[in-house]
């Protein structure tokens, strides 16, 4: 056993009063860490606009916004799921199934409005199944992993593996048209995000979802309908995945069982990057949008810089870890450090 005594070597922290400058620096640090992803995005945008002439063009920014819109739409759903402490791995596969179904129905002469409503219903229905399994007590990861596998299988069964073209002008307009000068996918993403933001922060449903994720037992004894809430958030996620699937299919003018492979990982990354907790109880739709744009702009910027496409992947992973590290760990440390100075005032 070691026999070395503790010495009172550390300075007496509570006694060291920070100067005014110090205080301002600390406040800035807290602020910087809290809005870390957002600041990261801004820095990246500025750096890129110096590195590539093509980056800060309206065309490019619009392109990226369009590319990101399905991720934002699906990310809003995932934000609600994660607010309750769940996860939804099945959304990429729902995109595939929905794009095949919509294409086939349109080819069979179903009116586009009806086809769209139909696939939204299918997406929400698959979400209800996910939610029901979670409610039965299956861990969300497993329930939706099974969905990931089975639903893509269904897409292949239904389409027999073939991708089919979409020719319906209304659906094509959803993917590539514009309304009042704004591209339709961007418009859809903006509406979904606005509704999502409102629902999460301003409605009973949003608060109940956060309470369920924050402490399930407390939500239960306060009489919240936990089971129904679970089914609801997965249904929303499934429905928004279907909407994302429509956008993807319309953008590609094509319904394919290979659509959306790995999209669930992009969606989850965006939500986590945005600052929503993977463990539930704390969620932000605005953060999800920032996270989704961050991922897209990193890819886009590296592409414009002619970086070897393989390196883009490597960098994306590293950025994910770095941002989460900043968001969760540093956040705690810095906030605690700042509270010291606050109580010193």
């Amino acid at each position, binding site marked *: 056993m070691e026999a070395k005594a503790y010495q009172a070597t550390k300075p007496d922290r509570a006694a060291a009063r920070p100067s005014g400058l110090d205080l301002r620096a600390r406040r800035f640090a807290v602020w910087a860490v809290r809005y870390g992803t957002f600041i990261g995005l801004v820095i990246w945008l500025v750096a890129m606009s110096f590195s590539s002439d093509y980056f800060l063009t309206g065309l490019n920014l619009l392109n990226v916004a369009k590319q990101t819109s399905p991720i934002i739409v699906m990310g809003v759903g995932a934000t609600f799921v994660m607010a309750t402490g769940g996860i939804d791995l099945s959304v990429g596969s729902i995109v595939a199934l929905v794009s095949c179904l919509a294409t086939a129905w349109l080819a069979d002469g179903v009116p586009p409005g009806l086809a769209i409503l139909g696939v939204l219903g299918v997406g929400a229905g698959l979400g209800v199944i996910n939610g029901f399994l979670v409610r039965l007590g299956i861990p969300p990861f497993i329930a939706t992993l099974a969905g990931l596998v089975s639903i893509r299988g269904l897409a292949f069964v239904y389409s027999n593996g073939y991708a089919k073209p979409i020719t319906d002008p209304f659906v094509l307009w959803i993917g590539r048209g514009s309304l009042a000068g704004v591209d339709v996918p961007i418009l859809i993403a903006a509406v979904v995000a606005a509704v999502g933001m409102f629902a999460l922060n301003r409605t*009973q449903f949003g*608060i*109940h979802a*956060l309470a369920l994720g924050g*402490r399930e*037992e407390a939500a239960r*004894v*306060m*009489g919240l309908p936990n089971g129904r809430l679970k089914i609801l958030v997965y249904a929303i996620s499934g429905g928004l995945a279907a909407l994302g699937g429509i956008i993807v299919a319309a953008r590609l003018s094509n319904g394919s069982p290979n659509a959306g492979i790995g999209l669930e990982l992009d969606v989850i990354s965006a939500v986590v990057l945005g600052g929503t907790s993977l463990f539930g*109880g704390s969620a932000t739709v605005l953060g999800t949008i920032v996270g989704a744009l961050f991922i897209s702009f990193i890819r886009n910027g590296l592409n414009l810089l002619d970086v070897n496409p393989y390196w883009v992947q490597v960098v994306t992973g590293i950025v994910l870890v770095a941002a989460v590290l900043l968001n969760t760990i540093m956040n705690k440390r810095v906030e605690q450090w700042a509270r010291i100075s606050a109580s010193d005032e």
Partner: protein
Amino acid sequence: MTTPLIRMENISKNFGAVRALSHVGLSVGPGEVLGLVGDNAAGKSTLMKVLSGAHRPDGGTIEVNGAAVAFHGPHDARAAGIEMIYQDYALVPALTVTQNIFLGREVLSAVPFLRILQRRRMDQRAKALFTSLGLRVPSVSSPVRELSGGQQQAVAIARAIGFDAKLVIMDEPTANLGAPAIAKVRDTIARLKQQGVAVILISHRLEDVFAVGDRFVVMKHGHVIATRDVGDTDADEIVRMIVSGTDVRKAKADPSGVGT
């Protein structure tokens, strides 16, 4: 005797092979403070969870003001004016004080179907509530996670008594508390009593019940053993009943009842 506020009769509850409650009856009048005491695993918490709607009994009836009721969940019990302060407070750490206080009975705007929160209104009412109760929290919009244990308890108390409760159940509110905090809890109970609110107090600290209570109910092994008015008994008798599991007076009168 007038109609009691709450009357539970013949309540039974099994957990698997464990018979937590068997044919238990209990009644509380308005403004009455009832001390529910008994050894560990006597069934006190289970009985109160039945009353607060958290557990469904396997059998028996509950009446509120003489009318039979069925609670399908905590929501129903709260609607009937029965509130419970859980031992762990049952607060959601990530939500704010206001959000916790109104959890499950949010104030909604008039827009139909949409269930939009009136956030400013709730904040104001929460502030008013704390002022009227003489309790203090740093800010009603700070997350409960950032409050100290005592402040969290204040939130739990405010939530339970802020909504015209007729009966407040407290499950061991003074365990882990120091003397000054215990005094505050006692004050709160006394104030509730004054306002005509009934209180059921589960506590291993008999002195709490003697200080603010009207009546003891002693439980053991899922049965109610005895009932005593506070003025008619002493700590010694209650402890003997808790330990032995028999009503000492009955036992004296009828020796065959001993050692059931």
